[in-house]
Structure formats: C-alpha cells, structure tokens
C-alpha cells in the first residue's frame, strides 16, 4: 500500500512537469519569434496565461497537501520546493511574454546588425539549455544534474555583461535595436536566473541542503 500523501505528491509532480514542458515551448517560441521577426505574441500570450493559471493550481495543490496531510521531512521539502518552482515557471512565461512583446512593439531585432543577432542567438541557446536542465533535474529529482547548471549560469551572466560592454564600445545603428536587444538580453539573463533557482530548489528537495549555484 502506498501512503495517502503519495497520490497528491504524484499529482503535483505531474502538474509541474507539464508546466515545465509548456514553459520550454513558450520560451523557445518567443525567442525564435524575436530572432526571426515573426509575430508570435498572441500565441505566447495564450501559453503564458495557461501557465499562470497552472501555477495557481499548483500553488493551491501544495496548500491542500499541507492542510490535509501534515507533511514532514522530505515530503515537506518537496512541497515547499514545488511551490517555489511553480512560481519560477510562471516567471519563465512572464519573461517569454515580455520578449515577444518587444518583438511586437519594437519590431524585435530586425534592425540589428548581424553580430548582435548572432550573439543573442548564442546566448538564447545557452539559456534554453538551462531551462531544459532545470526541467530534467526536476523530473528526476536529480541534485547531480541540477548542480551542472552553475557553469552555464556563469557563462550566461558573463555574456550579459559582455554584451553591455560591447554596446558601449560600438553602438548599433538604430536605438530600436539598442533598446530591444538590451531588453532581450536582460530577460534571457533573468530566465537563466530562474532556471538556477529551480535547480537550487531541486537540490534542496533531494538532499535538504540549501545551496547557491550563482
């Protein structure tokens, strides 16, 4: 016989994994749209709304589990982490929406020089990898996998500051490009931060250790 709380934890975990997959799609879709200059705003908007309501549901579920099953030890850590992760996922989708909003309002990176789009594409690949890692680490509750994110996080951080330096040295032709590229890079960096938070939460739920990967 399994424990009564297990059913609820399982439900919550399935819910989060579904959120994870959807956030990955949302983030990658909005980045792609931005890089290619295609309009994906309404689609991303829909996905983002869905994710936010899923995040509310997940939060409700964690509350229910706490109220009904008096979780302790690993159960309690899991629930606490799941609640934080659900929020992080919601943030992913929020930044994805912001990125596609830039594309919608400022025309994205269309007016940017090639080196800029290339730079951003490279950075976004790294960020998407981080998102992937965070989802996989969550799915497998693997602290080991979660820890690997630290390196990429450092790289993304470095790229972010490096990009700002580069802009100061060599301004793009249009201010539209300047503004949108800076914002996109900034949002990508934020997404990377949340991927890192998720990995920290995974380490906490798996081992009980509170670590900082940044």
């Amino acid at each position, binding site marked *: *016989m*399994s*424990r*009564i*709380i297990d*059913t609820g934890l399982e439900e919550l975990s399935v819910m989060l994994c579904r959120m994870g997959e959807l956030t990955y799609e949302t983030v990658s879709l909005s980045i792609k749209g931005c890089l290619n200059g295609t309009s994906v705003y309404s689609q991303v908007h829909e996905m983002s709304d869905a994710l936010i309501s899923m995040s509310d549901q997940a939060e409700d579920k964690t*509350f*229910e589990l706490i*109220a*009904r*099953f*008096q979780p302790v030890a690993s159960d309690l850590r899991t629930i606490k982490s799941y609640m934080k992760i659900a929020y992080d996922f919601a943030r992913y989708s929020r930044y994805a929406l912001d990125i596609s909003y830039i594309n919608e309002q400022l025309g994205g990176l269309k007016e940017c020089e090639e080196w800029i789009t290339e730079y951003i594409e490279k950075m976004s690949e790294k960020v998407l990898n981080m998102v992937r890692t965070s989802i996989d680490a969550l799915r497998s509750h693997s602290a080991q996998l979660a820890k690997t994110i630290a390196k990429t996080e450092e790289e993304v951080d470095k790229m972010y500051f490096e990009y700002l330096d580069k802009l100061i040295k060599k301004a793009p032709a249009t201010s539209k490009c300047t503004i949108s590229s800076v914002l996109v890079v900034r949002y990508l960096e934020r997404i990377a931060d949340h991927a890192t938070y998720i990995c920290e939460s995974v380490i906490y739920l798996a081992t009980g250790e509170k670590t900082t990967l940044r």
Partner: protein
Amino acid sequence: MSYKIEIQSLSAWFGSKQVLQDITMKIKENLVTAIIGPSGCGKTTLIRCLNRMHELTPRAKVTGRVLLDGEDIYSENVDPVTVRRRIGMVFQKPNPFPMMSIYDNTAAGLKLNGVADKHRLDGIVEKSLRAAHLWDEVKLELGKSGASLSGGQQQRLCIARALAIEPEVILMDEPTSALDPTAAAKIEQLIRILAENYTVVIVTHNMQQAARVSDFTAFLYLGKLVEYGLTKDIFENPKSELTEKYITGEFG
C-alpha cells in the same frame, strides 16, 4: 458522480434527549465522506442511523428519511436486516468474534446467513482478506483465532468480515481510535483504496485523519450539521466561524 445516500431531515433521540436535529446531506458514491465534531455531537449516532443500528438501543427513536439509491431504508416494508447487508460497518474497537478462527470470522456474515458452499466461502474469504490487505499476513494460519492477531490486523480482519458480505457502503466508526499510529496509517491507506469500489462514511474525532482520508467532510456540532463540503475547502477555507474554531483547535 451520483449520490449513494441522501439523508433528509433526519432527527434522532435517546429517550427524550434529542441527539440529531434535522440533518440533511447527500453522500456521493465511491468517495470517502468524513463526519467530524467534538465528543457527543452526534456523529456516531448519525452513522448508526445509516444502517439502522441506532434503533437497537433501547428507547432510541429516529425520524426523517435516509435514501439508499433513492429508496428510503426507514420505509415500513424495508427489513433492517437487508439494509445491513448492503451497508457494512466497522467499529471503534476491533471486535472479531472471539471464538472463531480468522477464516470463520471473515466468513461469519455469509455462514450465519446460511451460505455453506465451502468452495464459494474459500473464494470469498481470500478475496475479502486480500481487499483488506491482510491476506499475505494470515494466509498460512487461517485456522488461528482472530483474537490472536495484533490490534491493527484485527481491525483489518473486521474490515474483511464486512467486505465479505459484499456491501455497497462501508460505515466506519472511529476505526483507528484503538490503534497505534502505524496500524492507524495502514487503515487510512486501506480506506483510500476501498473508496475505489465502495462508498465510505467515516466518523472520526481526529480532524487530521478526516483531512487525510476523506473527499468530503461534514462538521457536526450539538446534533446539527454546521458545515458540509469538500474536505479541501473545509480545511483551507471553512465558511462557518464555528468550523474554523473547531478545526483550528479553539474548542472541542
């Protein structure tokens, strides 16, 4: 999902003392409904009205209707004995028949009702003990006394005994109050599993237990139904201030 039991304006008395006042509630099929409330609030009386056990107490009286699948179990032409075969009951203290073996305890309901076919009995005994998650622990010693088992095992034996007559509803009157926490946890898990095939109504003075095992919770106070709803809602956001006070431990 449909309603298995509908309680309509049910009132109950012991002599001149009224213990239930005008209870109306519907119990859903294949879910667990918990009845909570402080001692003496009438929760045990309420479930004893559902299988017509209340009237066995001298000078007890019941008014109102209890519909089982739409039919009033208190109507004139209904034999309480047949009602009790459709609605099984598990009691507060494990009460296996002391002079009977594990096998005979499980088969007691059938045997006493005249089933003698050994082959059929064997099948039902195994099925019921498996359903009560006791089979693996006792299959090699079915001839041993039911009283020789541990408290938790005895209670699961009583559950198996209730399941053997193939009821549709199982009433449980504080089924874990005489058990240690580990044995109690097993019974709780079992209740969740039983809910897949049976409608379960459980009375408990342990609020956390109600929270853990039930889908719906009814809060009874001084013989009145104060609040009834999804367990999640009752424990997260009760509507009545009285419920809030009770579940947060302010009284009771």
